[in-house]
């Protein structure tokens, strides 16, 4: 046998084995120990530490897709698309503040930090939101000059970490959002790994460069709802009672948390379900703590109605809002507005097939990329690397976000008109049915084709 023959045989053997990799008839994967679970166990065995990633909960839980609208029928007439009005405006925070927020659309941009996102990405969010007539929100890194400049309405978060917190930014903000928690990690603080603690980020946060920072998970100067009332009062005093005060909670005990937030004086409650995204946290947090957005909305609305505060304290819901249908459903269940995080950066280009080459270089692929904590995003969105961030065009990004917001509003209006509603806020639970027992029970709407609401009549406050 010549050397060529030997090499040829070796190559043939490799190709034969390669063609046998992956599924073929007779190979059965375990539902419990599937390939992803096996991979994670072996990663843990190699590294000795939990897996950290970005994005929100990826597992399937009951969500808005399990709800359907009842359009017009013999007993209900629709409104003409384009010809008859269906308004979309919303006022947030008129309970106490002398300057509540007037938004053109009931979709806001959720809090995402500079640090988690690049400067150009934050600028794009500001541009797009301003074009669409809505607000953006700062995140765990404080307020940047670019965001204040490009956002016509800016909500400033007060988080447990208090990175960059200062009274000048409080006064420059249009509203203040006290963060108790977020849906991805109720009970956890922010995480930003060393590779994203750039000079600028480190300075804004008063941290040494290159450390793996983990924010506090509790506020340093207040703990329970009675203290929160005093804290809200202080913030109002500092800002001369001008700004609406939001309280953001991750969805765990939405009924009680909403009631307590209202009693503490909140003007707006922001409720973030478990599908809510993050730039970085432990996988176990994302997938196993917090309840689905669908399960959280009705209890929160119940709390508002029980306190006679529905529509007087507004409810903003986030966590897996993806389309005008999701927006319409969350409004129909009683929310005043929806908020988007992951969807917003996807609109900017995150996980786009256009970056497939870049994804391949970091061992991932478009549609799967969630290692946002590493800061190597080829799209230049979830990175602090100047070269990568320079690839992202904030003006184009802003336009894309505005287009996406506009599309969602058109979709929601289409649905609302079909239900005969002249304002998105007129959508109501009676417009909805469910196609699963879980969704019917959670949303408290009947299973389609029946009058059955599982659990109706039993006390289910939580």
């Amino acid at each position, binding site marked *: 046998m010549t050397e060529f023959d030997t090499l040829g045989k070796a190559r043939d053997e490799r190709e034969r084995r390669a063609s046998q990799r992956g599924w073929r008839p007779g190979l059965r994967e375990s539902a419990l120990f599937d390939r992803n679970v096996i991979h994670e166990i072996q990663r843990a065995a190699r590294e000795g530490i939990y897996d950290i990633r970005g994005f929100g909960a990826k597992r399937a839980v009951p969500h808005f897709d399990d709800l359907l609208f009842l359009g017009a029928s013999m007993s209900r007439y629709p409104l003409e698309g384009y010809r008859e009005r269906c308004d979309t405006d919303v006022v947030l925070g008129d309970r106490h503040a002398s300057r509540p927020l007037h938004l053109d659309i009931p979709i806001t941009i959720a809090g995402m930090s500079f640090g988690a996102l690049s400067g150009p990405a934050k600028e794009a969010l500001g541009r797009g939101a301003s074009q669409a007539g809505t607000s953006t929100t700062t995140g765990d890194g404080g307020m940047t000059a670019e965001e204040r400049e490009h956002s016509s309405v800016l909500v400033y978060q007060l988080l447990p970490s208090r990175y960059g917190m*200062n*009274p000048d930014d*409080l006064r420059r903000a249009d509203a203040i959002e006290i963060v108790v928690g977020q849906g991805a990690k109720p009970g956890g603080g922010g995480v930003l790994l060393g590779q994203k603690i750039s000079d600028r980020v480190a300075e804004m946060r*008063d941290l*040494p460069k290159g450390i793996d920072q983990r924010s506090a998970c509790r506020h340093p*100067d207040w703990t329970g709802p009675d203290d929160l009332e*005093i804290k809200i009062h*202080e913030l109002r*005093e500092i800002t001369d009672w001008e700004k609406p005060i939001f309280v953001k909670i991750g969805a765990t005990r939405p009924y009680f948390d909403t009631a307590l937030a209202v009693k503490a004086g909140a003007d707006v409650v922001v409720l973030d379900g478990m599908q809510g995204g993050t730039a970085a946290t432990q996988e176990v947090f994302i997938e196993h703590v917090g309840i689905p957005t669908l399960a959280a909305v009705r209890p929160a609305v119940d709390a508002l109605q029980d306190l006679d505060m529905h529509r007087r304290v507004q409810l903003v819901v986030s966590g897996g809002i993806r389309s005008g249908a999701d927006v319409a459903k969350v409004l129909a269940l009683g929310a005043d507005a929806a908020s988007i995080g992951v969807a917003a950066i996807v609109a900017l280009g995150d996980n786009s097939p256009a970056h497939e080459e870049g994804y391949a270089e970091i061992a991932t692929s478009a549609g799967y990329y969630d290692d946002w904590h590493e800061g190597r995003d080829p799209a230049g969105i979830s990175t602090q690397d100047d070269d990568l961030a320079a690839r992202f065009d904030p003006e184009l990004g802003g336009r894309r976000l505005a287009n996406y917001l506009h599309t969602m509003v058109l979709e929601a209006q289409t649905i609302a008109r079909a239900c005969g509603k002249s304002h998105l806020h007129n959508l109501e639970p009676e417009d909805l049915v469910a196609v699963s027992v879980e969704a019917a029970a959670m949303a408290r709407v009947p299973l389609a084709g029946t009058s059955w609401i599982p659990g109706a009549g039993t006390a289910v406050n939580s």
Partner: protein
Amino acid sequence: MGTRARPGVRVGAGTGYVTVDLAETPLRELNAGLHAVDGDGPRRWRVLNPRGAHAVAAGIDAEIEVDVDGHVGYYCAGMNKRAVVRVHGNCGTGAAENIMSGAVVVDGNASQSAGATGRGGMLVIRGNAAARCGISMKGVDIVVRGSVGHVSGFMAQKGRLVICGDAGDALGDSIYEAQIYVRGKVAGLGADCIEKELDDRCRGELRELLERAGIDDCEPEDFRRYGSARRLYNFQVDDAGPD
């Protein structure tokens, strides 16, 4: 015990005192007045009968002096900029929280989270502070003539915490780059907090802080220094073999 604090803020030429009696005037009017002070505004204010009110003198941004006669509640002088606020009494939770500059001096005792997340300026407590003194501090200097409670200096990022008395349990837990000086006993150190050498530079720093705080009966030599071991700065990731 110690002289009256003179933290070195220049006070403008006298336009006399403004006195506000919180027994008769709503807090909102006091704070609105303090926020409205401009270049010509009154430089010296006196607040009577605070009776434990919250957010007294919160959010000032002016070079003025405010004397508060009595005890205050939570968040006195919260987010203070440039002003000198003196509390002639005790204060509740979060005194001088997030102070940016200027000074806050408390004659009596302070409750929990004194100086929380402070980013500049100085907080002086003549009496004792409670738990979590200096929690999450980001550049403020805090000087306590008495003792502090447990978990003081928790996640302290920047600035100096000087304790002339004793410190409670878990001092400096998860501390970053702030410096802690203690003269009395330390009940226990928190995660990643260790004792460090008190060298000439530290003694000089301490002397300057005590002087600014108006404390003249404590010697730098009698203090010990504590700071971060820096073992929690990065996640510990193993690499047990190839795939």
